[in-house]
């Protein structure tokens, strides 16, 4: 944006972006928000299972070079202990908020999560990121002229003083979740046990979907020990491990008005903290 007309155009564009329920005003007073609206706004954006949508053609997509590079960037940061993938999922799939979650391309959120994490963990400053973005933009301001844009690091830094997690060293040669084996004690549930998913007031991040909250199922498998994603997402290397379970639900009980046969099932994996015994 360089002149008043361009600034005005961008303001007009942003003003069209609506992100709230149409029946509730912007900037509501507390008395205007029902408990159900509150829960809807608090719902972690990635948890879409069972939301209403319509059939449309399923597409494959040719991958962009930058998308491959983004995937590599994220995995290499994990390989070198800068984060674990659950931190990426929290940032990229929830912290971005619902507007960006639904509005911007899949891999752009992977990039967002890298920038955000590097700043929050103080690997880079806002100034460093901003200056570099401007520099790369300027580098290609005249157009690509048929060339591919390239990364041109000025030097290779000394990484010996960089703060890294213990996980990438402790799990080496062992695997994840194998590295947590033996840490969670005795599993509370066994195969065949009837369990109910707790309806917890989960804020900020979870991987237990809302579509099964309060639902009853059966333990199909006792799987492995691991810290819960709600702890890994926040780089809590001090978190205790717990047992995970594949829980089987009957679709006719899970969903209101399931129209398929009565023996259809759904399985999902749930950490012990989210389950309670039935009967």
């Amino acid at each position, binding site marked *: 944006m360089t002149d008043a*007309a361009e600034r005005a*155009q*961008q303001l007009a564009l942003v003003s069209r972006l609506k992100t709230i329920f149409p029946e509730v005003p912007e900037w509501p007073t507390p008395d205007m928000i029902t408990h159900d609206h509150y829960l809807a706004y608090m719902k972690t954006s990635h*948890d*879409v*299972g*069972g939301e209403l949508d319509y*059939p449309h*053609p*399923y*597409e*494959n*997509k*040719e991958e*962009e*070079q*930058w*998308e*491959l*590079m983004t*995937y*590599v*960037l994220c*995995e290499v*940061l994990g*390989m070198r202990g*800068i984060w674990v993938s659950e931190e990426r999922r929290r940032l990229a799939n929830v912290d971005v908020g619902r507007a960006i979650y*639904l509005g911007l391309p899949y891999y752009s959120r992977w*990039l967002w999560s890298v*920038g955000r994490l590097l700043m929050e963990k103080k690997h880079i400053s806002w100034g460093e990121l901003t200056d570099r*973005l401007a520099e*790369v933009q300027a580098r290609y301001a005249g*157009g690509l002229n*048929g060339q*591919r*844009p390239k*990364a*041109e*690091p000025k*030097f*290779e*830094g000394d*990484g010996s003083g960089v703060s890294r997690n213990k*996980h*990438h060293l402790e*799990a*080496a*040669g062992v*695997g*994840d*979740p194998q590295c947590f084996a033996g840490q969670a004690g005795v599993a509370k549930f066994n195969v065949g046990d009837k369990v109910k998913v707790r309806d917890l007031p989960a804020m900020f991040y979870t*991987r237990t*979907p809302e*579509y099964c909250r309060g639902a009853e199922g059966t333990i199909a498998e006792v799987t492995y020990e*691991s810290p819960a994603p709600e702890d890994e997402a926040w780089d809590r290397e001090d978190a205790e491990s717990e047992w995970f379970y594949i829980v089987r639900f009957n*679709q006719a009980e899970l969903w209101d008005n399931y129209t*398929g046969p009565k023996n*259809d099932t759904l*399985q999902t*994996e749930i950490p012990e903290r989210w389950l309670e015994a039935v009967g």
Partner: protein
Amino acid sequence: MSEHGHDHDHSRTVKPMVDEITDFEVLEIALRELCIEKGLFTAEDHRLFTEYAEHIGPTPGARLVAKAWLDDAFKELAISDAVAAAKEVGIDWLEPTGFGTPSDFVAFKILADTPTVHNVIVCALCSCYPRPILGNSPEWYRTPNYRRRIVRWPRQVLSEFGLQLPDDVEVRVEDSNQKHRFMVMPMRPEGTDGWTEDQLTEIITRDCLIGVALPRPGITTNVTPLVRAAIRPIEA
């Protein structure tokens, strides 16, 4: 450029000219440069993982199923210890980091279809997928549309892929929302007696390994032909 006085809105809301760098490319390059300059990882680390990423694909997954069809003992191994079975088709789930890829972990499990159970996989929260043995997920698998609907209306979604299952076959949706990564082992179809491992591998498409298609003699391609082109696709 434009003859219209105030056409700024039009030029800013259409797709970028092919020759302009995109915001996403700018951000990726800036972040990669800063990471290397800060010593977070080296260019060699990046090269190593790029090479890994460029070599993964669905053929090993298909070959694993073909082997299982031909060898009952291997089928048992595939069901009881999928990580060990994957090694037999050249896939080591610990690679290339030594502790598993950060996003795919080392908890691979194969879901064997039976005459009474048909499995189909989703990650309703994001797009978790057994990349080491299947390659990267197809775009449709990642979309909110697939993830919203397959858990609640599985038979409708499967029918959109052309797959209809009888009422006496249990459709089991496996939502891979934690560290497990799943792959379906479909049943061997009729009309494949005497086939070699190579012949069988050819008809076990990626879509069959997700569970949105069944293997059939003569069908060697995935279900949906729709492919959206990239602006600057992966460099050869």
